[in-house]
């Protein structure tokens, strides 16, 4: 068909079909010059048309907005050559040893991708670790340590430092100048050998050992060693001022021994016997808080109490009594009766550092036949070896300019010795001063040479915590800074091969039968038991001289006296720059981030100090003979009247951001008795208010349980023996079908747990409140540190807290009376964490399902989904949920470990770091549960009981926490619950029917019921 369609031309060019036109025909403006023709580019704008402009604009806008949306780039650098034993995401465990001065514990170190992230106890010896050991992990990543050796405060290299030091030492040695090595207790036999080598090179050298928390007197009284106490064998324990569950010698191990006799079993044939524990003390210590009977004395009465106890015991067993001034302290007679009754299984310990007092204690223990049963014969403990007298004479030597060179071997006497200030001033008289401390601390800053020692996790070492038991350290990470082990330094300066690892290996290969392979095995296991090298005989005491000395030094007075004590977390202050420890609430006072002056309520009234309200208190000035400190005061129930107590370990000035200026240094206030440091001062103690307001950061401000039986349930042993349900509170409701248990009436349908059902049992009877679990949890779960101000704002983030309640004398109806603690209260500790309720009130209220119930009974928190309404926290009856009020990491307001790259290396890579605005809480260590299940799945089996364990349960020195699968009838938790369901097991406030997955076991005190009532009456009278 012919095309009849009309055609129009755009112009003559189209009709002619000119090539130039055809080329541009597709263009909107056909005759426009083409880009090619001009050779321009759209992006340089030389030849752009409208469309190009829009294109560029569109691209530009989207590119800019996309670029703005991009998250900051973080590079992950893969291994170029992967180390053989490092598998990403797989943890490696190494046996090692925690060593901090005389404190040492065999440990297992969990490392991930080459960095240590968690410390656990080494089961070969004793898994019990204190909070300080768990926290010491963070000290590894402290970026305020010295990053290289220094000469006169300026970074130098090791070669230059070694050269100058060796020249200096040679010069002094040649001139016959005195050389001193000053250290705290050294538990490492090989280190001692190194020091021996050094001394043989420089014969004028002498090794001075002292301890900040000295037990010099105890050592003297026991013939030069520390007795190896065994609390596990003791049926009656009397402690006079020894805080053996909190700070004394080796508290974690003592706790585990002590707890062995506190375990009860409600089954018919189960154990219903407990040890009885008497505590006499000035302050309310953790140990006193756990004692069955507790009485107070003033520091000036300490010797008299011991003497009175000796007399009471001697009178009963027919020993020679001695004449000593009378002392009015309760319970001495009763304690003596019980001690004698359980003769052969009795133990008396004293925290005194006065050798004469300790001699009387030795005499009591001899009378009671403690040697060989509660004090292990033929063995000694090595945790403290300090000699106060030699330290004092060293300080006078320095002052008189007799010392030519001094090496401070990881010791900081300028800070932590009572005469530190004198020493500091006199140090300029010493020609050659060297410090191996990890930082330029109070002592290090005064030394010409700082040759920083490596952290123990970067080091090779060995330790002998008790004679015959050796524990080994191996590095779990290469040195982070340019540090060198102090042993290597000493070897180097002694002109030997500076390789301490080789030295150690050679030493042990020769000692162990089996040579180098035995050494390898020993390193692998971490602990080796050998026949004790030291023999121990019952020391002979000059009792009469001791009594004479006591009569001279101890006189009861009405004057105000100062008691100096050690806090469970902070200790001597050696780890003061560790924010985990700074934020660790003291078990009894629940205070952190400072020390403070504690007084009893009666004393506070006498001094005209108003009792603190919540966290607000007054600043007081405590002065003795011209020395004074200003710090807040705190009313401490259970403290001896007319005493004021202040903790050591604070008031650091050169430790780092977290420690400097926190609290006051009380070491200079310690006095000397018989040449030994006495952690008290009975001089002219004055306490007066400065008129300034002050605050103490405390995690708990309400001290009593307000007679709420559903929260804490307790009984006494005699009642429990009659009825295993004694002390239980079982609420019932009257229904149409008669009385029913409150827990049987429910609107809930319940959950089905077809596979696992995780649960926990916490024995209130063996929990000492030591807080090891708190730090362990912090470490495992990346719990942020929030600092003093945020603790004051009541926002500490600890997933696990330990509630501490004092008893009150008031009747249950007297609500305002119930708020006041007794003058000498009974104390109960209650670890409180997410109860993983089966009918969880938090789960129903979350608008976005960020907190839900797992099929295994866990209450799980999905951080990503949380929008932060905090409704769940409000609706939690246990108040265990923690909110991220701020961004706690990489924020200058929270300048702790999470604010620097090194500090963040401590983070557990298996646990999310929570962002601002989300809720968090205990997860029952779900990462461990998942890891355990995966491990079992790989082996095609079910997880075995004990294989999956939460951090808190794992680190409890007394095994008060049992975690496991309630669906597995063979698990430990099922077995306990099967028995204790009809015995001591209860859920906290279970009547509101949230059905918690944590059961608590009733606390049982080994006390006479009558005595309890009578005491309460007496105290009540005193009060009113």
């Amino acid at each position, binding site marked *: 068909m012919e095309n009849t369609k009309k055609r129009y031309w755009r112009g003559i060019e189209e009709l002619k079909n000119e090539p130039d036109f055809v080329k541009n025909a597709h263009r909107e403006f056909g005759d426009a010059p083409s880009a090619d023709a001009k050779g321009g580019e759209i992006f340089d704008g030389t030849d752009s048309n409208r469309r190009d402009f829009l294109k560029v604009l569109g691209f530009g806008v989207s590119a800019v907005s996309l670029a703005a949306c991009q998250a900051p780039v973080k590079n992950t650098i893969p291994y170029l050559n992967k180390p053989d034993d490092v598998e990403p995401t797989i943890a490696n465990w190494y046996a090692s040893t925690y060593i901090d001065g005389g404190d040492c514990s065999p440990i297992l170190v969990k490392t991930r991708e080459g960095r240590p992230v968690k410390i656990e106890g080494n089961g070969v010896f004793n898994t019990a670790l204190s909070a300080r050991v768990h926290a010491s992990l963070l000290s590894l990543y402290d970026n305020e340590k010295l990053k290289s050796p220094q000469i006169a405060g300026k970074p130098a290299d090791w070669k230059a430092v070694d050269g100058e030091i060796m020249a200096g030492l040679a010069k002094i040695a040649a001139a016959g100048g005195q050389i001193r090595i000053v250290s705290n207790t050294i538990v490492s036999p090989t280190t001692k050998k190194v020091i021996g080598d050094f001394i043989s090179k420089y014969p004028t050298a002498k090794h001075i050992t002292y301890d900040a928390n000295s037990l010099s007197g105890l050592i003297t009284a026991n013939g030069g060693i520390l007795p190896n106490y065994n609390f596990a064998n003791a049926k009656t324990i009397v402690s006079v001022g020894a805080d053996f569950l909190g700070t004394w010698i080796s508290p974690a191990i003592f706790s585990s021994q002590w707890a062995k006799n506190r375990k009860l079993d409600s089954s018919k044939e189960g154990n219903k016997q407990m040890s009885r524990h008497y505590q006499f003390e000035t302050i309310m210590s953790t140990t006193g808080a756990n004692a069955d009977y507790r009485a107070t004395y003033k520091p000036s009465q300490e010797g008299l109490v011991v003497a009175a106890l000796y007399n009471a015991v001697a009178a009963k067993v027919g020993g020679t009594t001695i004449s000593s001034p009378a002392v009015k302290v309760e319970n001495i007679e009763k304690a003596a009766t019980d001690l004698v009754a359980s003769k052969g299984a009795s133990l008396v310990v004293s925290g005194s550092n006065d050798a004469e007092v300790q001699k009387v204690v030795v005499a009591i223990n001899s009378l009671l036949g403690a040697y060989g049963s509660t004090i292990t014969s033929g063995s000694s403990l090595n945790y403290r070896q300090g000699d106060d007298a030699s330290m004092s004479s060293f300080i006078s030597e320095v002052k008189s300019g007799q010392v030519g060179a001094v090496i401070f071997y990881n010791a900081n006497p300028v800070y932590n010795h009572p005469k530190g200030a004198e020493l500091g001033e006199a140090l300029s008289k010493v020609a050659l001063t060297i410090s191996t401390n990890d930082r330029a601390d109070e002592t290090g800053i005064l030394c010409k040479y700082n040759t920083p020692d490596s952290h123990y996790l970067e080091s090779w070492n060995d330790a002998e915590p008790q004679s015959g038991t050796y524990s080994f350290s191996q590095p779990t990470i290469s040195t982070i800074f340019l540090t060198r082990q102090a042993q290597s330094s000493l070897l180097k300066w002694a002109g030997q091969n500076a390789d301490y690892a080789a030295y150690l290996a050679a030493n042990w290969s020769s000692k162990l039968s089996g040579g180098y392979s035995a050494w390898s095995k020993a390193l692998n296991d971490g602990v080796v038991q050998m026949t004790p090298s030291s023999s121990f005989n019952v020391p002979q005491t000059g009792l009469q001289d001791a009594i004479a000395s006591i009569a001279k030094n101890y006189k009861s007075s009405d004057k105000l006296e100062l008691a100096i004590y050690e806090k469970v977390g902070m200790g001597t202050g050696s780890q003061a720059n560790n924010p985990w420890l700074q934020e660790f609430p003291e078990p009894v006072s629940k205070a952190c981030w400072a020390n403070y002056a504690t007084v009893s309520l009666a004393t506070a009234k006498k001094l005209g100090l108003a009792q603190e309200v*919540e966290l607000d208190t007054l600043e007081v000035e405590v002065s003795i003979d011209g020395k004074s400190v200003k710090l807040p005061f705190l009313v401490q129930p259970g403290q001896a009247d007319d005493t004021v107590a202040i903790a050591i370990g604070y008031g650091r000035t050169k430790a780092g951001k977290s420690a400097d200026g926190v609290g006051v240094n009380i070491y200079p206030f310690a006095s000397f008795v018989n040449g030994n440091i006495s952690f008290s001062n009975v001089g002219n103690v004055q306490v007066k208010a400065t008129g300034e307001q002050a605050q103490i950061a405390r995690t*708990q*401000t*309400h001290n*009593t*349980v*307000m007679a*709420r039986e559903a*929260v804490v349930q307790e009984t006494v042993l005699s009642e429990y023996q009659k009825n295993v349900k004694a002390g239980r509170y079982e609420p019932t409701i009257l229904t149409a079908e008669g009385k029913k248990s409150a827990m049987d009436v429910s609107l809930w349908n319940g959950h089905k747990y077809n596979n696992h059902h995780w649960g926990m049992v916490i024995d209130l009877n063996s929990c000492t409140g030591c807080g090891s679990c708190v730090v362990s949890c912090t470490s495992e779960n990346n719990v942020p540190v929030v600092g003093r101000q*945020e603790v004051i*704002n*009541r*926002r*500490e983030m600890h997933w696990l*807290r330990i*509630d*501490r*309640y004092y008893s009150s004398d008031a009747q249950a109806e007297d*609500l*305002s009376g119930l708020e006041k603690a007794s003058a000498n209260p009974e104390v109960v500790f*209650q670890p*409180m964490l997410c109860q993983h309720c089966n009918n969880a*009130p938090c789960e*129903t*209220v*979350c*608008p*976005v*399902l960020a907190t839900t119930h797992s099929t295994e009974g866990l209450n799980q928190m999905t951080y990503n*989904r*949380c*929008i*932060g*309404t*905090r*409704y769940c*926290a*409000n*609706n939690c*009856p*246990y*108040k265990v*949920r*923690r*909110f*991220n*009020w*701020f*961004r706690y990491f990489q924020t200058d307001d929270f300048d702790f470990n999470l604010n620097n790259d090194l500090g963040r290396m401590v983070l557990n890579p298996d646990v999310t770091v929570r*962002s*601002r*605005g*989300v*809720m968090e809480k205990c997860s029952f260590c779900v990462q461990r549960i998942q890891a355990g299940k995966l491990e079992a799945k790989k082996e095609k089996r079910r997880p075995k009981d004990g294989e999956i364990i939460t951090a808190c349960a794992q680190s409890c020195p007394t095994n008060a926490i049992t975690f496991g699968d309630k669906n597995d009838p063979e698990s430990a938790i099922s077995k306990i619950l099967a028995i204790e369901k009809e015995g001591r097991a209860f859920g*906290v*406030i279970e009547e*509101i029917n*949230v059905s918690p997955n944590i059961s608590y076991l009733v606390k049982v005190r080994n006390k006479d019921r009558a005595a309890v009532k009578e005491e309460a009456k007496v105290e009540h009278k005193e009060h009113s």
Partner: protein
Amino acid sequence: MSHVVSPIREKLVSGGKSYHDVTQDICRQVEGAPTKEWKIAFGISCVIFTYGAYCLGYTWWQGIGVWGLNKTVGWAWDITNFVWWVGIGHAGTLISAVLLLFRQKWRTSINRSAEAMTIFAVLCAASFILAHMGRPWLFHWALPLPNTFGSLWVNFNSPLVWDVFAISTYLSVSLVFWYMGLVPDLATIRDRAQTKASKFWYGLFSLGWTGSAKTWARYEYVSLILAGISTPLVLSVHTIVSMDFATSVIPGWHTTIFPPYFVAGAIFSGFAMVQTLLLVTRVTFKLEDYITIEHIEMMNIVITVTGSIVGIAYLTEFFIAWYSGVEYESYCFVNRATGPYWWAYWMMMTCNVISPQVFWFKKVRQSILLSFVISVVVNIGMWFERFVIIVSSLHRDYLPSSWAMFSPTRYDIGDYLFSFGLFFTLFFLFAKFLPVINMFEVKAVMKGVSTKYPKKQVAHKQIEKEDTKIGEEVSES
């Protein structure tokens, strides 16, 4: 809707106003230049708003840690303010919907500003919903929106989700209701407009209102329907808000009395707020003839009645706390009255229960000054009521170990000020640019044209003389 007013009733509009006077009186504010009083008041609101916005901005930037909340007291001023504002927002709908259904003619001169107040109050409340979140930028997760997370939905068990529905429904219905009511008056202003801009804007928002019989008829249908929809909302919104507390396990929150108690409290505080604002508007805009002593008295009566209901609720809570024998519950109430927050409790009791009782005296009821003072006192009391319920219950719950105190920071206060700034800025904008009194409804209740005087023709003529257009509109209705 017939506008029958009983002949024995007091006139609802005094001063012998004609329809034209009404139009003139109300439009004067809209059409004239801003008055000095308005400028000062608006200026102050803007300053407060700016300071508040800074505080809120800082709160959002830093995190809500800048508030005084803690691990034990997870809600304090944020939710107190939220509930307080929502409560205030109840009066508007009550006045316009419930009173409309009950044929309460006196509502006509106050319903417009009451509704406006409702909307602004709900906006203020909504600002606290956003502000109280830890991660407010994810607020939309509380809505049941389709998402890429699979079957991830909101938790329909959570009263907070119910809250989201309740508040958003309430806001949208109130907004529509208010706007609907504005349309005829906007048309009046449009028709009187002198400038191009106001012609355009009022023309735009009056939606081409013609004032024909058909339009009026449709208008009446819609307002009745909306009144019907709004009425249950008056009861449901605060009931649901109360369930935030009532469904929890916390002593002092876990109470079945909360829904009626909260609704009564909401009406109580709403009326008090309306009273406060009206008394101010009345004086500043010289509207004494429209907002008469009669109005003030009626409002005072409602305040006394609802205040007494609230008082009974307080006493009932105490009785039940004792009668239940639950140790935590009874401690909670003893603690409220005698614990560390006793002052807040007694503040609440004095302001809410005791102070409105003075309205039993007619003299007081008719005193403008006392009415104003007590309306303010009531709102202070109602703020403390929410503070007492939230903070005093939370701060000492089951475990004494976590007992803690709450004290506000400058950001708690600043963010509260923000809501005041927002509220008053919006309210003054409203007062300037929109008719604060519902002109056509007021005209409808004026005795001059009521059925009492059947001289419709005369009236009609008169109207034609004065203002043909408005006369038409009114007679149509």
